[in-house]
């Protein structure tokens, strides 16, 4: 007995290693298979994801004023810009901007396929840490140093095209996906 291959003294190391690794691999796949749902459940639920579009009527917005609407839990700004504000936004040398973009690049074409620089549509969330910038006409200091928006949390200044000009925010205010569904109504989302 003792000198056969199947004795107690002889251990087939290779076979043991194989079983050890194979069992470990199956356990790892199993852990991954149960771990993935446990982690992914925290992502957005289908209904949260779906509740995502609103319509805004631009004809109600007077020149020089801004409306805020709630879209996906965040404010959307629609500002009816004055000719001075548009001129200011267009006159900037794009190369000097922290996040370069021309004023036209921040607009969407209307039903006629043209850009209407009067209406600027943006997500009203500072790209720094997510506060709502203030930018109401007629309020002292509310427009920031560049006449657009000012974030009270950490002092970011945006210009009249919503581009970051000064402060800690890394990017321009985000333009949400939107389209004109009539001459005066836009659909955001």
């Amino acid at each position, binding site marked *: 007995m003792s000198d056969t291959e199947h004795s107690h003294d002889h251990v087939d190391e290779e076979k043991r290693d194989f079983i050890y690794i194979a069992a470990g691999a199956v356990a790892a796949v199993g852990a991954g298979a149960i771990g993935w749902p446990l982690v992914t459940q*925290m*992502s*957005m*639920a289908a209904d*949260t994801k779906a509740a*995502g579009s609103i319509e805004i009527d631009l004809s109600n917005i007077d020149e020089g004023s801004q409306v*805020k609407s*709630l879209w*996906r*839990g*965040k*404010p959307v700004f629609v500002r009816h810009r004055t000719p001075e504000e548009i001129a200011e936004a267009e006159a900037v040398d794009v190369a000097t901007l922290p996040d370069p973009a021309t004023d036209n690049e921040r607009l969407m074409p209307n039903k006629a396929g043209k850009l209407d620089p009067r209406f600027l549509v943006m997500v009203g*969330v500072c790209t*720094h*840490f*997510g*506060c*709502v910038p*203030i930018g109401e006409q007629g309020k002292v200091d509310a427009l920031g140093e560049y006449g657009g928006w000012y*974030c*009270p*949390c*950490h*002092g970011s200044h945006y210009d009249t095209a919503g581009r970051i000009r000064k*402060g*800690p*925010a*890394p990017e321009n205010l985000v333009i949400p996906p939107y389209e004109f569904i009539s001459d005066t109504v836009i659909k955001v989302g």
Partner: protein
Amino acid sequence: MSGHLSTYEPKYGVTKWLDKRLPIIRMGADFMTYPSPRNLNYWWTFGGILTLCLMVQIITGVILAMHYTANVDVAFADVQRIRRDVPFGWLIQPMHAVGAAMFFFAVYVHMFRGLYYGSYKAPREMIWILGCIIYLIMMATAFLGYTLPWGQMSFWGATVISNFFTAVPFVGDSLQQWILGGYSVDNPTLNRFFALHFLLPFVIAAVVGLHVWAMHHAGQNNPVGIEPKSKEDTLAFHPYYTVKDAFAVVVFLLIFAFFIFYYPDALGHADNYIEADPLATPAHIVPEWYFLPFYAILRAVPDKLMGLLLMVGAIAVLFILPWLDTSKVRSMRFRPVTRIWFILFLINSFILGWCGAATPSDIAIPMGEDKGLNFLWLSRISTLYYFAYFLLILPIMGMIEKPKELPESITKSVLGGASSGGAAS
């Protein structure tokens, strides 16, 4: 010092029976007779105070959870209902809210005590690191809990802090949405924050168990920072330190009660009495006082990712402190120069807190008309000192400083003798 011999002898039949099967009485008895250095001062009572704080938070927290609903439509009203209508809710809710602040106050004293007396040095690195982990989970728990009343500061604090994650390159936005469970802070966020806020204190309790275990294994540090050498250098934990801790706890509870009964809202922010509004950010967002120094570090650089890395680094540096301090001498009592750097570090921490509460562009130190050092620059200088203390001063001082002569033993340092250097202080 490690693993002192058990002196417990079961007297009765039932305790003898139990001792052979589950030596739980022995464990408690050994805990109570644990030999502690005889010279522990009142700074050492904060370990006990912190245990009490954790218990207060867990007990009041579980009670509040019985009356609270984590839903954006009712959460704000629920907290007011607890304070007005629930029997003794007026007492229990402030105990929990003020308790969080008291908890942080005690943990900061405890940490500064460790920094001053070199409690993080070999062989106590694991005690220190476990403590840092507890502190980190405490911060997470406090942040999650602050969201629950669903006031303006709750909402915008959660918004700003969850936006930290958008600074992570490439996956930032998806990561943030995964954490929030939506496009922005909303009902799914409140729900999960509540669940995690309930869970984490129990994780803290578990890590506290490891922290105390490591401390009993390596032995307690003491004000002169030398190891006990003989039996006369130590005293049994009970009654000597149970009584000392109890006195400190009474004083601590007096301060605690003063806030609960007279100023329950003094440490909070008035804006949190306005219900969360995702369309309007309060003009001046500030975190709770215990996060202000880190908030100042975050704002010290005008770059999102760098600011975040600095803030994370400010806590990460604590974890490697045992290897940054190169001095063999533990207690600052015997380190005349480093002691001054330490006091400056303490003052600097308060300055950082002051900067965190202020508007960066306001003038902090006036120098002439409308001129002076603004809070942004003050926070930059303070941030620099914060990091310099850990990364430059402690490593270098350990190499160049000549420490004072250490006492021969703890007993000599207490009762006097030829070499009781500075023990009278």
